């Protein structure tokens, strides 16, 4: 039976401890949550992402107060009311738009850090999978948010993306109309995407962030050498005062102080963009109100979707859809397609080194080709890059199977 000290003053440490076990919580989640010393600034990206999500949430709350999810009023509520009338409305909008763009850059850095160091293997599979679920929900969140200003690019991106659900030759027009609630994107469409953006997706994202942190707690974070650390033994060294000898540091306050330093640098760059270069996150086409009878000459998604969009483009309708679907799900399978037992930086992993850099370069090429008009040499480069992407993933199990075990690893 729980013991409650009758003499403890309300809300005193003892009182809270009896009721909430605050000391245990603090120990398990922060002061005795051990982080390897052998890491670099790339390990701070998780905290950068959490902070950026916080910025999106707070700026979004302020935007929500004046935004009107009505096809006739939405455009002006953003571009006139929020930008022109609401005090500092421009600040929230620019913070929201810049953070929405930058968050994907950090997500990609975070992902490629994990791929480079093999941080998706040997007990860390669920970290990778929950992270991929976060990538998908962030994508849905970004797309639904892009609909809200109801500009030309909102409307036409909404048209093109919902049309994908007709699934090519299956021609499921009924499904497309059901998703839109209309024959074309209209009030029903704006209303439901508004709901998804401000409530359902953020709820799911927050739950997934908790799950993502949870999956990290037992396997612990990886380190620069992929070394299998005995966290309990190393923690004992730290607690015994042998801090130089121990290979680990506590999450709080030691690791957090490094994280906060990286966060500081990140926010300097972020606010520089918010105040002086926000325009990169604001497509000029979207400053024209949505017009169902006028397609913009060139429809393209935001930069972070370009690579998968370019995988869709060079093929015929059905093949393109299959390739696109492949690109959307294949990253989920990474922990199972990598057949090598080695957890090590890519540079020490033979062919995987080339695979990693080829994938990174290929995705950058796809991103650039997704932005330029689909003609001439661009179509050729895009087609080659799309095939390269597919073939790289097909080759992954074979080249990792060939990989020699690194000495000292099982």
């Amino acid at each position, binding site marked *: 039976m729980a013991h409650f000290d009758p003499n403890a003053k309300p809300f005193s440490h003892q009182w809270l401890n009896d009721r909430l076990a605050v000391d245990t919580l603090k120990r398990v989640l922060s002061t005795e949550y051990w982080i390897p010393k052998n890491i670099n600034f790339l390990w701070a990206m998780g905290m950068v992402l959490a902070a950026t999500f916080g910025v999106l949430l707070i700026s979004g709350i302020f935007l929500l107060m004046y935004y009107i999810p009505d096809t006739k009023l939405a455009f002006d509520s953003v571009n006139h009311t929020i930008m022109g009338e609401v005090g500092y409305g421009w600040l929230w909008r620019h913070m929201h738009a810049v953070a929405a763009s930058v968050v994907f850059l950090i997500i990609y850095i975070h992902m490629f850090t994990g791929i480079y160091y093999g941080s998706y293997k040997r007990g860390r599979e669920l970290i990778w999978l929950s992270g991929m679920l976060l990538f998908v929900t962030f994508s849905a969140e970004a797309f639904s948010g892009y609909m809200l200003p109801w500009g030309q690019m909102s409307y036409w991106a909404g048209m*093109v993306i919902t049309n994908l659900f007709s699934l090519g030759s299956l021609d499921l027009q009924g499904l497309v109309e*059901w998703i839109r609630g209309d024959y074309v994107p*209209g009030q029903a469409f704006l209303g*439901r995407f508004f709901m998804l953006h401000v409530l359902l997706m953020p709820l799911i994202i927050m739950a997934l962030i908790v799950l993502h942190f949870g999956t990290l707690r037992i396997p612990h974070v990886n380190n620069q050498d992929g070394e299998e650390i005995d966290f309990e033994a190393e923690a004992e060294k730290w607690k015994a005062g042998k801090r130089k000898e121990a290979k680990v540091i506590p999450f709080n306050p030691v690791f957090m102080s490094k994280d906060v330093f990286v966060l500081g640098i990140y926010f300097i760059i972020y606010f520089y963009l918010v105040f002086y270069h926000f325009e990169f996150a604001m497509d000029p086409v979207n400053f024209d109100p949505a017009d*169902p009878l006028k397609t913009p000459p060139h429809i393209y998604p935001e930069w972070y979707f370009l690579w998968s969009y370019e995988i869709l483009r060079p093929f*015929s309708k059905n093949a393109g859809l299959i390739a696109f679907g492949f690109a959307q799900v294949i990253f989920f399978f990474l922990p199972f397609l990598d057949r090598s037992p080695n957890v090590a930086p890519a540079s020490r992993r033979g062919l995987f080194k080339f695979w990693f850099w080829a994938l990174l370069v290929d995705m950058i090429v796809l991103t650039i080709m997704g932005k330029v008009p689909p003609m001439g040499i661009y179509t050729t480069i895009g087609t080659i890059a799309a095939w390269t992407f597919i073939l790289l993933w097909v080759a992954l199990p074979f080249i990792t199977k060939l990989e020699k075990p690194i000495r000292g690893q099982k």
Partner: protein
Amino acid sequence: MSDRRDFFGKALGAFAGLGALGALYAAKRTWDPLPSVKAAGFTTIDLSQTKENVLYTEMWRGKPIFVIKVPKNAKPSEAPNGNMENAYDDKRLIKVGDSKFFIAIGLCTHLGCIPAYYADQHKFICACHGGQFNAAGEVLKSPPPSPLVIPPFTVKGMKVVLGEAGPEYKKLKEAGLVA
């Protein structure tokens, strides 16, 4: 004892399952297009004042509808069909009064962009992904997988009602020519 517990567990599961199914159905129906949206699905177009080889864009169910009066004296070379035939001989063109008309939904069948009409070349070019259609809406250049879609229509004198499938439309549909 355990029988009773099993029974209660199953009964609870069954009721909760029924409730979940009901809720799913309600959620699905909430996302359906509204009756008012569906009812507003008819558009009448008057074709008596149209000029030859000029693109008119009308609205039907929120979608753009292309209408072009076929020029009477077009040469075969003017309106290419990809196979040296005259696109203006295509069976997809609709006879209204004593003229032929091209009527189709003005959305590219690839991903729904609106192609632009180049009257001098008698063809449509889609700027999004480079698809092309001839003057009868047939594909000249992929990625579009199928011709521009002919909406359900019925001819009433010099007027055409969109959204209602008349005998001319049904004939086209049976011949597999509407899309």
